[in-house]
């Protein structure tokens, strides 16, 4: 590798490290964004908006696919695993709709 390329890679590495350090508070939660978004919005789509599973997957899907989803119609609960992290959403009542459960490590 020539000196120029090494310098660019080093600079890139330092920039990324600084970005991560400065934004660590938000970045450490990043893996939960997808399972949380999917669980909450799927729950709402299904139990508040009363659509079928196929429609809800189509509405909620993102670029990164989820790993698993457990849809429990009997207790109106959805749990999603994505980016190796889990999140659940629970339907509460006819006027309160769905709510995310506590974030678990």
């Amino acid at each position, binding site marked *: 590798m020539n000196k120029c390329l090494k310098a660019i890679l080093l600079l890139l590495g330092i920039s990324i490290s600084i970005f991560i350090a400065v*934004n660590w*508070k*938000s*970045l450490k*939660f*990043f893996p*939960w*964004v997808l399972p*949380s*978004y999917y669980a*909450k919005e799927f729950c*709402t789509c299904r139990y*508040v*908006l*009363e*659509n*079928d599973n196929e*429609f809800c997957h*189509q*509405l909620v899907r*993102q670029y990164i696919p989820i790993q698993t989803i457990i849809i429990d119609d009997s207790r109106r609960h959805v749990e999603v695993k994505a980016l190796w992290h889990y999140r659940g959403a629970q339907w*509460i009542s*006819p*006027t*309160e*709709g*769905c*709510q*995310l459960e*506590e*974030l678990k490590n």
Partner: protein
Amino acid sequence: MAFEVHLALWLLLTRAPTTPGEEWDTSLWPPSRLQEAITEYAFPQSASREKRHGRRTDAAVVVHGGRVVYEKYWEPYTAQKRHHLWSVSKSVAALVTGCAEDSGLIHRTDIVDSTGLQLQHLLQWSSGKKWSETYEYNPVTSSVIAMLYTNGSSNMGRFFFSLPQEFAPGTHYRYSSGDSNAISYWLSQKMPAEKYDRYPWEKLFAPLQMSSVVWERDREKTWISSSYLYMTARDLARIGLLVSRNGKWKDKQIISSRWLDWSKRVSPAYKPKPLSTNLHPTAQWWVNFDPQSPHIDPAIQGAPTDLIAAQGHWGQSLIVVPSRDLVVVRFADDRDNSFDLGKWIRTIIDAAEFYEQMSQSDPSSSRH
């Protein structure tokens, strides 16, 4: 049936402006080129559920003089189904806040934390808190995504109030879902839990006979005003009609004209961007023009100057033109920027003007 027969029937049915009871009066505009233009724009033939391109309207409802004059849905949506409002929720929530001020429970000058931040700064999106309002295309450092989905999701009020102050309160306009949720958090601190829980229904949804409303909460039971109201298009149209009628519903003043007038004042810290056609922000609403800030040009040329709207992610909108007693609801799933609000407004107003003229020129009509 011939257009003339349709028109005659429609004219017979059209009377003085009305307000809906349990159900809306329906008096659909007879088909015409202008009415079809609304359908062509909102519901293009090419729209697909699988492909996320172009205008993808789920519901379009137009109310004129208190009657439904245009209504169309895209399967599986129907008149009975609820839809996301996304940020249209902010504007509806602000009406509830207005009711609370009218009742003396809170006041817009309330100081909500130790920095001198006032409720009106939150309402006018100028809290000055450090905030990033980006969505699915830029999720990594987004504050709104953290608030709704990760470290803020259990207690959105606490998440907001723990943020650092970037600008002095009231000095810098920045659209923020955090500011909007902080308002409902503040309200939750101002009344007992059982009263707070029922309050929006007692003050707004029940008097307007809106039966489909769902309002999601965080784990503190705070209403998520920024994003999570759900209702049918017809129910949202009732909110629009209330605004069109200056807060009056049948013979009752649901919300004061004082609050509604203030809702039309452009946020003091806001500076319009040159060449932008975005509506101007007020206290949780958006306007085309504010006569009290005449130096700010109308946002959309050719659109009525008294236009006031609520707007949400992926194309949700509630447009109100009080001078025409016109209300337009659109629910959608737009995933790109194909939809042009200015064109939408002009298409509908062209049709409304046409049918207004038809109505006024007909001697059998008792209007005007």
